[in-house]
């Protein structure tokens, strides 16, 4: 899951990036409106956290332009302006959620999880696939009730696959959604992580679709 944080306050930006990174997300950051707008327009993000009062370009304009360009990723507005008129304006511009500063980091993480789930069409915070269970709230993975220890990259890969189970996910898509923008993108590393996951979890969980990518079986046809 890849997230974009657009926030001009350096400290808050750092805190958000750290917290989201700890939560198992790949996080890109932007400190001003233009940079943020550009990233959101060109990179595939699963969630964007957008401050409204930004230098160079304000949040509402960024959001409106993205929506006009049919960028449909979930956007959570994070702002100090907490009047309902501001919230309504934000939601009307195309936001999916609205968090007023100051906020609890746990709440922000919960909202981010909710947006990710909503985008993938899941209702609960726990996702299952066969006997593997992923708790997005605590970032824990269990197999037959036994906790499986995963590195952060392994967790990211598994979480993305589980959110999109039943569908073929290409390597490029995985690279785009699992790594930060400035990460050295070598799609071979994906194969390495898939291999590690197959060792830690039932090997048949992730199926290789030759030439296309990988697929995880959803509950319906998991043998």
């Amino acid at each position, binding site marked *: 899951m890849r997230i974009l944080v657009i926030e001009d306050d350096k400290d*808050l930006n750092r805190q958000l990036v750290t917290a989201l990174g700890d939560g198992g997300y790949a996080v890109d950051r932007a400190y001003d409106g233009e940079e943020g707008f550009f990233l959101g327009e060109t990179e595939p993000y699963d969630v964007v956290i957008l401050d409204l009062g930004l230098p160079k370009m304000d949040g509402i304009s960024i959001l409106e332009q993205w929506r006009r360009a049919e960028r449909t990723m979930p956007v959570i507005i994070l702002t*100090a302006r907490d009047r309902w008129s501001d919230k309504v304006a934000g939601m009307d511009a195309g936001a999916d959620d609205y968090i007023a*500063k100051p906020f609890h980091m746990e709440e922000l993480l919960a909202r981010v999880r909710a947006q990710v789930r909503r985008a993938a069409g899941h209702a609960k915070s726990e996702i299952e696939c066969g006997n593997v269970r992923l708790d997005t709230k605590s970032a824990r993975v269990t197999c037959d009730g036994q906790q499986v220890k995963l590195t952060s990259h392994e967790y990211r890969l598994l979480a993305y696959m589980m959110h999109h189970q039943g569908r073929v996910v290409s390597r490029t898509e995985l690279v785009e959604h699992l790594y930060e923008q400035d990460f050295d993108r070598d799609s071979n590393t994906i194969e390495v992580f898939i291999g590690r996951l197959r060792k830690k979890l039932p090997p048949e969980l992730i199926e290789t679709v030759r030439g296309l990518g990988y697929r995880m079986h959803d509950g319906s046809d998991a043998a």
Partner: protein
Amino acid sequence: MRLNSLAFRLFITSAIWTLLVLPIAGFIIYELYKTDVQATFDGRLEKLVNAVAVDAMSGTDGVPIIPPNRYEPLFEEIHSGWYWQIQPLKDGEAGRRLVSQSLATGKLPSPQLEGVAESDTGSRWLNIDGPVGVRIRLVEVIDTVGHKKDELPYSIVVAGPVDWLESQLATFRTRLATALTLAGLGLVGVTLFQVRFGLLPLRKIERGLSDIRTGEATNLEGEFPVEIEPLQHELNALIRSNQDVVDRARTQVGNLAHALKTPLAVITNEARDSKGTLAAKVAEQATIMADQVNHYLDRARMAARSGVIGSSSDVANIVSPLVRALERIHQERGIQIAVTCPKTIKFQGEKQDLEEMLGNLLDNACKWANTRVYLTVRREDAPTASKSRSSGRLYIQVEDDGPGLTREQRNKIGKRGMRLDESKPGSGLGLSIVTDLVQTYHGRFTLAQSERGGLQVNLELPAV
């Protein structure tokens, strides 16, 4: 007409002036007329006495002859008040004494013998009580038969009733008084009309200002007389500057909010991530600061507005975007908001305030609801129908199908910062902001058990 009013001032000064001037004018006119009537009466008597003298003294045998009555028919009617008398000036002298038929056996005195001085025209005047007690006025000339000197001088006297004079004056007095009274009433009436008509633009201003207060209009509109036009301009400028001040204050408050809340968020997050008592203290105090900032920012927003000339806002136009936003915020739980709100209803107050109240109430309802939230808005004319158009009341009801609250919880919840369940996100200030705003608008806020299962919140607010 109230005592302390421009209309009363104008009216009373004009009325006093009228009441003062009319009697004085009446007195002067009466005096002039009286003098004139007196002169006419005297002139007539003088003419008569001269005519009688000429006729009677034209005798040739040394005695006066009876003058033919060609002057005044009343000389022949007994005790008519009109008399003539010719007699020798000195008593006892052998001379002829002649009197008019009207005098009968009566006798008139000779003013000369009574010691009355001669006037410019050679006649003497005297007022006496006549033979039948009627007040009469005498005029006397002295002449001799054939106008010869050394003859026996006769006193020729003609008298007329003073009553006639009096009755003439009395008639005139009545007419004059009637005319002047009518004129006075007319003047007062005209003054009244003048005051009302003249002050009509002020009434218009009053209505215009009331429209501004209730939010029907944003400035004083219409054509005003040149004297009032500058006032209109100044007033409109004042309203505009007032609005500017409010807008500026609101912007500043918003900026302050932004400026304070981001650092607070940073401090809070940093402190939560760290261990130790200092971090815990900082986190705790930062949370208090955040609540205080929110509370006082809302207060400041309200204060910036209180006493400011009001406005009105369409309820339906506020509700639909709010509901859209809220349904989206609570999309994951699939909350539906059922709205019943007639299009024509208008809230008498700031759009943002109603938005704030409705937003917080609906958001709370959405957090607690299972699947549905109900919003019902209706308007009623206040039973105490005053003249003001702002007497309507707006009734807003927000219900949900959630778990609801017990009576005890309902009593607690309105208190500042009180939050019953910490598990639902939110600062806990939502309801206290609502109660503060309701108070600002002199409205009412009550909680009840909804028939739909959950909590029912009732708001009563002023409507246009």
